[in-house]
């Protein structure tokens, strides 16, 4: 038996003991094919999925390497069936190829005839396939390129796409490296993407994904459509492109709710594309507005589902996806794989380490007990009312006041969902409140005051929380909220809170009503945050005084 850091479970999870001396090596070795699922303090959990293995295949790893890695680092004997399964799964990728035939156009070809036979008999594939050219080749309707890839992935035979791309309308783009240089891994990432055709580049936050995108544009030298999550990030992209490339401000257009410009390089938000009016997507035509040579998807893991449907038709154009993680809340990793492309580049772990693995905030859940009257009201209320009743208890006001007093000299945000509760809090704390109806001007003034330290306490609604220019705080107190995507929650949390300049740990308080749905939601969040490696504590409202400051 070797004393490896890795334990391979029969349910295809890999447990990595991170205090082990070889843990770092092992993490590097398994990263290409296993997805990190949880990273709490002692044991990280990775999972082997078909998609992860196919991604590894697309990136040039073969089954033997994967098996060797598992055997090398595994502490115990690896279940034989699992190794066989890995080899079989990886062998499935690439048996089918989408190719461009000189006379027949788009075709699906195979190296393994029974596979093609199996696929052609599948119901899902039926309408997308045309006539049979020979035993190993079949015509594919050009418009079904994306849908076919999706369907093939679903039935377990992902196709490799060799059908090539249209060049698009040429447009000169060069990197302007006069006062900076592209980092090695950024160059590698852009090049592996370019050689792979289309695909996803995985880089951690802050590793310069924008530059990888710019570099990809410089490779393509063609008109480019960039899809980003929101307007802030659209602006950031624009600034960055102007600064780092030969592009000028006039060549870059913004296509968002506020502005609708179509220029050689156009940056559009997901929101504007997915906006629906009377059952149609009015801005969808942007996709065909120009002969785009490259499409950049920023934050692929947040790509809204309707975009997938739209991108299914864009298979002839080069696509690059940029993201920090391939894990999607909605489980549509398969669509990313088939419609944007396989993972082309994964950041070397060393660079992520240099980012540090410190928990960015100390999360504290404060539990209050509902007074008897409210408890009864809660118990007898309609299910849809329950959350509001539970989260708007008056007990929370006292708790928040106490917390605010404890952090009297630190910039503090109180975040909530229900306006009446916010108003009540604002009155009790004697602090300004920012809601959806607050004018932009007033909002700006308050934010500036907060930044300068003039105002050290703000009560903000969820609307304000989305706002692009929300200032950093050292303390955040959440009294109610709709916890949608957990991933988003963590990102927001990371963005909101920065460690204090004097090394003080930022704090994130959540005030929760005990024994209600409020606490149930909190449990999910607790699990997620703990899995992400955040410190997490639960205290009773009566024990706040015992907390360290």
């Amino acid at each position, binding site marked *: *038996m070797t004393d490896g850091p890795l*334990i*391979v*479970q*029969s*349910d295809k*999870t890999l*447990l990595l*003991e991170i205090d082990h001396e070889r843990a770092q090596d092992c993490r590097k070795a398994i990263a290409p094919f296993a997805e990190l699922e*949880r990273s*709490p*303090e*002692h*044991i990280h*959990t990775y999972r082997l999925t078909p998609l992860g293995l196919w991604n590894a295949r697309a990136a040039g790893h073969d089954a033997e390497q994967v098996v060797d890695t598992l055997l090398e680092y*595994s*502490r*115990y*004997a*690896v*279940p*034989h*069936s699992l190794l066989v399964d890995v080899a079989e799964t990886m062998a499935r990728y690439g048996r089918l190829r989408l190719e461009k035939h000189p006379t027949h156009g788009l075709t699906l070809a195979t190296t393994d005839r029974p596979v093609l036979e199996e696929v052609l008999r599948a119901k899902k594939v039926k309408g997308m396939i045309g006539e049979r050219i020979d035993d190993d080749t079949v015509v594919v309707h050009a418009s079904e390129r994306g849908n076919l890839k999706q369907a093939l992935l679903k039935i377990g035979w992902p196709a490799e796409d060799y059908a090539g791309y249209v060049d698009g309308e040429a447009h000169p783009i060069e990197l302007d490296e006069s006062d900076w240089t592209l980092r090695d891994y950024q160059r590698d990432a852009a090049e592996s993407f370019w050689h792979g055709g289309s695909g996803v580049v995985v880089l951690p936050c802050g590793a310069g994904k924008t530059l990888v995108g710019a570099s990809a544009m410089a490779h393509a030298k063609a008109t480019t459509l960039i899809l980003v999550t929101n307007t802030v990030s659209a602006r950031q992209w624009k600034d960055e492109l102007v600064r780092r490339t030969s592009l000028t401000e006039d060549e870059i257009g913004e296509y968002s709710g506020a502005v609708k410009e179509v220029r050689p390089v156009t940056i559009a938000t997901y929101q504007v594309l997915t906006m629906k009016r009377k059952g149609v997507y009015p801005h969808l035509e942007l996709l065909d507005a120009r002969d785009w040579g490259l499409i950049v998807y920023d934050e692929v893991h947040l790509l809204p589902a309707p975009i997938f449907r739209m991108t299914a038709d864009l298979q002839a154009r080069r696509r690059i996806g940029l993201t920090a993680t391939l894990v999607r809340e909605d489980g549509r990793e398969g669509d990313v794989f088939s419609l944007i492309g396989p993972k082309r580049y994964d950041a070397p772990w060393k660079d992520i380490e240099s980012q540090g693995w410190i928990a960015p905030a100390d999360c504290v859940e404060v539990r209050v007990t509902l007074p008897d009257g409210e408890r009864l009201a809660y118990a007898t209320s309609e299910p849809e009312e329950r959350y509001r009743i539970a989260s708007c208890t008056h007990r929370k006001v006292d708790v928040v006041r106490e917390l605010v007093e404890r952090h009297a000299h630190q910039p503090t945000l109180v975040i909530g969902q229900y306006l009446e509760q916010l108003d009540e809090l604002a009155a009790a704390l004697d602090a300004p409140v920012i809601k959806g109806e607050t004018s932009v001007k007033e909002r700006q003034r308050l934010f500036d005051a907060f930044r300068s330290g003039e105002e050290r306490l703000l009560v903000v609604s969820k609307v304000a929380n989305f706002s692009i220019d929300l200032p950093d705080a050292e303390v955040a107190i959440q009294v109610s909220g709709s916890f949608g995507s957990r991933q988003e929650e963590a990102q927001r949390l990371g963005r909101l809170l920065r460690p204090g300049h004097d090394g003080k740990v930022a704090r994130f308080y959540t005030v929760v009503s*005990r*024994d209600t749905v409020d606490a149930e939601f909190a449990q999910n969040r*607790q*699990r997620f945050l*703990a*899995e992400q490696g955040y*410190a*997490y*504590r*639960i*205290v009773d409202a009566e024990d706040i005084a015992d907390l360290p400051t």
Partner: protein
Amino acid sequence: MSAEGYRTLADQLRGWPDARLSRLLTARPDLATPAPHDSGQLASRAATRSSLLRALDQLTRLELCVLDALVVAGQTTRDELVSIVHAEPAATSAALEHLTDLALVWESPTGPRVLSGVAEGLAGGPGAGVSGLRSRSPEPVPPEAVAKRLAELSAPARTLLEHVLDHGGEATTGTSRHTVTTDEAATPAEELLARRLLVPRGGGSVVLPGEVGLVLRGGRTTTDRVDDLPRLPTVERSAAMVDKVAAGAAFEAVRRVELLLDHWGTQPPTALRSGGLGVRDLRAASVLLHVDEPTTALLVETASAAGLLATGHTPDGEAAWLPTDELDRWSTRSPAERWWVLARAWWDSPRLPGLVGTRDPAGKTWNALAPELAGVHQVETRHLALRELGALPPGEVLASGTGLPALAARVAWLRPRRPRTRADQVAWAISEAEALGVAGLGGLASYARGLVGGRDDTAAGVAALDGLMPPPVDHVLLQADLTAVAPGPLESTLAKRLQLLADVESRGGATVYRFTASSVRRALDTGWSAVEVHDFISSVSRTPVPQPLTYLVDDTARTFGSIRVGHAEAFLRADDETALSEVLHHPKASSLGLRRIAPTVLVSATPLDVLLPRLRELGAAPVVEGPDGTVRVARPDQLRARTPRDRRPEGLRAARGTATASAVVTAVRAGDRAASNRPAGAGQALSPSGSLAALREAVETGASVLIGYVDNHGTRSERVVDPRSVEGGTLTAHDHRADDLRSFAVHRITSVAPVTG
């Protein structure tokens, strides 16, 4: 051995030293039970068909062929025998010696002789491992003469002859004339008959004499060599690697059996009426264990063979597969010891889990644990196959791909008289061995050599395996996401306790547990206190206990038991607390099972209808409260019974009465007649043929006869009947007493007498 040979086998046995005789009795144990009286009896027992077949089954291809050659040659010498067996002379001699040891061959003055009966036992062609040649004629034609006659044959005749040779040496000739001269021969068959290359044997069939077959096959009984044991293709693989892989499988097998049986202990699968395990239950088990269904079937079968699983009854009385009490003893042992129990049970199990999921000849799917799922040869095949693995040179294992067929061929050489399914059986033996960790990567695990070699060195094997298995750990790593990871197999008692407190999320080399409010509550339900839970958690954790876990336990304990549930038949409530106390403490109220659960509420274990009068006796004046809280007043019910009603129509009853009466009368009359006709000197017993004759006569004449008849229960009766027919040993007659046609078995008729008057 005496140079001049023995007169009979018994003679030879008498002449053998004791050691050799006891060797024979060891090799053929059936000869020794019951102990034969003398050598004569031993010799005759050795020649009985069943004993012979059993001995033949244990022979290798070479030995069978030597024996077969002896049968073909008939009266022969040792040298001639060696010359006609297609093998190394030394190998043939050794085989002959072994056959002599087994008392299948004995030394006559004229040379080795096979035991009578062997020839019949060897019937069959190459499929049974023998040559398929007939015996030589009593006066065989010399080989040279045969060769000359063969040379004269036309091509079609030669082909025909070879065809007959290859198909059992026997044929029918159809229209061919059996007595023709070489000149008259018109067809290939006649050509052969004329030259005595085929000999008529009566009934239109001809045989090919052994001497002709020998010449056709170049002077030997077979064309291919019979002493070349098929070689096993091997590849190099270090023994350490084999052990590691096998030990991994062994560990997994033990873990899975334990997991499955633990699971079945609480949720047992139904036992099918036929005794097996349902397909759905097997599938569920395979999902639980994360293995495919064949492996699951193997584990289930092995557990059953080891006595850890048996049919029993659930509390509902349904037949189910349940872990036995042996499991509790088994679970306390070390993993290596547990494995040894499983491996030993598997080693000698005739079960065929490899068939599970396939269909039997009748098209019925084989279920795991079905009683019929066993094969008599499976154990032997398994032993042979694995011993062959064990005999591979060190550092070499069976090559994947070509190895398995070669192994099957080798086993077929060692025991040719075995059924066709052997290739499957060998494959099962190997795949089962690898799944259980007896073998790995096509090589035998070192710790299993004792088991396979038949040596009883359990301790050594267990010790060797112990060193290879992951050592049990006594701690877990607790994490803030409320999971606990045991980085190895937990000690058994620890695992049991932890399983109570947390849900298992992932299994394998390590185990991941998750604490949830409901899992902690489960532990509290079984009597743990919060303090005990805290103590246990901190004692098993090697890392600091995360605060959320501590909080979870406290929070669960806080609400635990805050609402209490109990059983009561009735309640008593009153705003007057004193009145309730009065009732509660009344000396005569003790039998009412009253208990105070609140100042104004009592509950009682007595049902309301008893309680109410008793309370009144005690001087209380209770009123009954309805489910909606209102007071119920009621006067005593007046009791009424239902009017009995006869549903049968009058007419039917009358008809029945009449019928019954007339049947009785008929019977009485018949009895009267029987009595009046009874002959003076009791019923005369007739010989069977006599009674048949008398009955036939009665059929012809249409007369009534009195018969004596013994029925199924041995009761004698006499009846007056009108015989209608006598056929197939049955008399059909009109019975006067029953007034109906009845059948009587002729052999039960004791007397037949004519009815007079």
